[in-house]
């Protein structure tokens, strides 16, 4: 009960699948059902013909007829030419060349009338080209095909271009110019691939495969043929599939596998029969006939060749008919030849029996046995062989024995020779093996050695890395400690500074206390400044001179602006990347600070000019102000000047001061740089 249920479900499923056909056909039919009698309906009919043409030629033709009628009544020359073209093509395919000629005539007229409409011209040329190809006149067809390709290229009609490229390729192939054919076929394939047009691609694969077969490059052909079949299967292109099987058959023949070839040819034959394509059916028959002829199976070969010839005759396909006749003639010749030989032997045999010529009789038995064996008529061969031996046994025992012994010896000799050569081969093999083993051993040894070296290196590196890491850890810890210390010191200094300020406020009138507190405040501030400067200076991120100059700018602004002193700060271009040592940097900055502080506190200047530039191998800094000069302010700046000089001495730089009440003060510092 359950089994029946599942069978029914499966059948229903298949029925549904079959009924669905392809989605394209369904939607086209839907458009036609709308019966709007407009250009859309015409196009739908044209497209439907194209879908059906590979599986149901009668329905396809009907569509084209309707399209013709509609195009005429709606006066649509392009669609009309397309319909004519379809009819011409499908008639060519079904070998109705006269009908095809008729439609091509109509197309020519239309093309002449509408010579400015490229699509019409293109349709005419396509149909004419294909017509001549059908007649086997490949030379005549070529110009039409090429013209058509040109028109499509101008129109940039990509799909048609690709199709036409394929046609040109096919033409060259038929003319035997396989290299040219291949070029066009590959070009067409590329174009179809770019368009994602699977049908086109399948044709191209087929064509390229056929080219390879013609060039006897069978293994190159195989993947292409197979690929074409895959796509054709997807597209349910039955005609294409039949073609594909036929091509596979050709391929197998080329690879000397007649059994496989036969299977494929038979598939192709069956399909073409169901598709009612007699031309293709006949071609399949021809292929099979050829196959049997090759196998010297005369009767089967004859059957198929006959059938093929009849169909071609009926279709008026003289090109193929000639091919069939040639095959048959070839077959008959060998057949005849065979017949002659057989007759000769049999005649000789019978006459020898008559004349009692035992030797000849016996020999003829042998000849006949050989002959039939060659022609695969083994039953006859066996009979004659037995007769031969029977005769021989009774009449020529001795000779036979000798012969047999001779044969035996020969056989033994041959066998011994074979054995010797085998032994030699064995020895060679053994030696080679040995060598291989040695090589292998060496290889393994080297490999092991390399492993050891690598292990060594890895270990060494690990040790180094580990050590480095430890050092970094230690460094980090040190940095942390330093940082915490700095933070602690800085915070405490700050608190001293703050408390002194608070106390100052509370000191009020008491001058001595105020003074003392003032000094505490100042010195705590000074040392906080120094700490901050040192930390800044030793930070490697501040190595480039650019950073120092930035800090100098900020400092100048912070000090001079509140003091109401205008200033300029200029630097020459190439300074940015210069690198000073930590000491040089620190000292340069501190000298600068001292100078600026002096200007702000003691000079009474209104304008300051700061300049930094590079001359030759020196970094030069000049600070000029229009204040009252040093002489007057000596007592305040004594320490400061001393500091500046000593700092400059530390870095072996040259420090100069010019100062007078009239000209103000000019400080210059020259640091030697490499």
């Amino acid at each position: 009960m359950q089994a029946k249920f599942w069978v029914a479900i499966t059948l229903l499923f298949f029925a549904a699948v079959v009924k669905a056909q392809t989605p394209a056909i369904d939607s086209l039919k839907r458009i036609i059902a709308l019966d709007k009698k407009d250009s859309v309906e015409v196009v739908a009919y044209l497209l439907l013909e194209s879908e059906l043409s590979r599986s149901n030629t009668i329905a396809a033709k009907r569509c084209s007829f309707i399209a013709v009628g509609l195009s005429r009544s709606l006066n649509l020359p392009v669609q009309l030419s397309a319909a004519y073209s379809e009819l011409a093509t499908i008639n060519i395919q079904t070998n109705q060349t006269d009908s095809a000629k008729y439609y091509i005539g109509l197309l020519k007229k239309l093309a002449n009338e509408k010579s400015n409409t490229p699509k019409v011209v293109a349709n005419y040329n396509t149909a004419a080209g294909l017509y001549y190809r059908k007649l086997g006149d490949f030379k005549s067809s070529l110009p039409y095909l090429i013209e058509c390709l040109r028109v499509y290229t101008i129109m940039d009609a990509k799909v048609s271009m690709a199709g036409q490229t394929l046609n040109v390729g096919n033409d060259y192939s038929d003319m035997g110019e396989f290299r040219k054919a291949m070029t066009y076929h590959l070009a067409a394939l590329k174009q179809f691939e770019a368009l994602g047009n699977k049908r086109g691609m399948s044709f191209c694969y087929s064509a390229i495969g056929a080219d390879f077969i013609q060039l006897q490059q069978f293994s190159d052909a195989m993947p292409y043929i197979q690929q074409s079949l895959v796509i054709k299967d997807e597209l349910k292109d039955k005609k294409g599939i039949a073609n594909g099987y036929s091509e596979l058959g050709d391929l197998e023949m080329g690879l000397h596998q007649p059994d496989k070839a036969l299977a494929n040819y038979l598939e192709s034959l069956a399909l073409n029969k169901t598709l009612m394509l007699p031309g293709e059916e006949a071609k399949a028959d021809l292929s099979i006939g050829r196959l049997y002829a090759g196998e010297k199976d005369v009767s089967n070969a004859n059957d198929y060749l006959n059938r093929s010839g009849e169909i071609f005759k009926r279709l008026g396909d003289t090109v193929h008919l000639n091919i069939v006749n040639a095959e048959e003639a070839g077959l008959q010749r060998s057949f005849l030849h065979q017949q002659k030989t057989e007759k000769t032997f049999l005649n000789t045999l019978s006459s020898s029996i008559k004349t009692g010529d035992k030797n000849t009789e016996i020999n003829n038995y042998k000849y006949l046995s050989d002959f039939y064996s060659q022609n695969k008529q083994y039953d006859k061969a066996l009979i004659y062989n037995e007769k031969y031996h029977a005769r021989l046994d009774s009449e020529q025992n001795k000779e036979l024995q000798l012969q047999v012994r001779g044969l035996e010896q020969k056989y033994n000799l041959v066998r011994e020779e074979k054995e010797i050569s085998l032994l030699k081969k064995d020895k060679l093999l053994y030696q080679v093996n040995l060598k291989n083993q040695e090589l292998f051993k060496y290889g393994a040894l080297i490999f092991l050695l390399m492993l050891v070296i690598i292990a060594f290196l890895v270990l060494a590196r690990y040790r180094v890395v580990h050590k480095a890491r430890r050092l970094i850890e230690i460094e980090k810890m040190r940095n942390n400690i330093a940082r915490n210390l700095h933070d602690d010191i800085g915070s405490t200094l700050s608190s001293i500074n703050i408390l002194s300020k608070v106390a100052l406020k509370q000191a009020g009138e008491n001058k001595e206390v105020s003074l003392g507190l003032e000094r505490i405040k100042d010195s705590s501030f000074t040392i906080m400044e120094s700490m901050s400067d040192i930390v800044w200076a030793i930070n490697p991120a501040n190595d480039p001179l650019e950073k120092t100059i930035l800090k100098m700018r900020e400092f100048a602004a912070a000090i001079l602006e509140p003091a109401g002193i205008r200033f300029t700060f200029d630097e020459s271009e190439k300074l940015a990347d210069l690198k000073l040592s930590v000491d040089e940097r620190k000292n340069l900055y501190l000298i600068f600070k001292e100078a600026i502080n002096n200007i702000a506190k003691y000079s009474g200047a209104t304008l300051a000019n700061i300049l930094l530039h590079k001359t030759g191998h020196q970094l030069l800094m000049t600070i000029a102000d229009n204040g009252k000069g040093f002489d007057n302010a000596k007592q305040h700046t004594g320490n400061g000047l001393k500091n500046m000089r000593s700092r400059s001495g530390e870095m072996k730089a040259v420090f100069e001061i010019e100062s007078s009440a009239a000209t103000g003060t000019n400080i210059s510092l020259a640091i030697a740089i490499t």
Partner: protein
Amino acid sequence: MHTILLYEDNKNLRESVCSLLSLAAEYEVVGAFGDCMLVESQVRDFNPDVILMDIDMPGMTGIEAVRKIRTFNKSVQIIMLTIFDDNENVFNALYNGANGYLLKKYISDKLIDAIKEILQGGAPMSPLIARMVVDNMQQKQKANDAYKLTSREKDILLLLSKGNSAKMIAAALELSLDTIRTHTKHIYDKLHVNSQIEAVSKAFNEKLV
């Protein structure tokens, strides 16, 4: 009368800051702590107007504390206290929502002015900060619309980062000092807003929200 919370792990400094602020009648230190482990509840309870926050503290750093505070309190003004000034911690603190920073060496001179300025909505933008913002923008490799700065603001930021003072920038761009200050405040706000957006998205990514 404005209330102030202080977070500073150095005892001496903590006490001296309290002393300093006691000189100003309009500011009152309502709490001074040596670490910020309980910062959330403390800020909630005291609800101060200004928080002075040290950056380097044991346990939780000042930056984390700022981030936590900003999750529930957007209005309190936070000034970071720090020894070092070329520290990316400063930038991170500002990025996470602090309103300004002050070097410890300047506390005695400038603390009260800084608090006043920040309560008035001023946003201190030093060349250092400007440089850090510029670097940060470049690092992100987004188009200059990282902070959606106007071109004027970008000019100011760049000049600032090159070491020019606000006065010099005003002279260079022929604007008033006040205009410059307003612009820097805007840049600051945008930095904040951007940082807040980043914070949210970052939190999302880290599944903290």
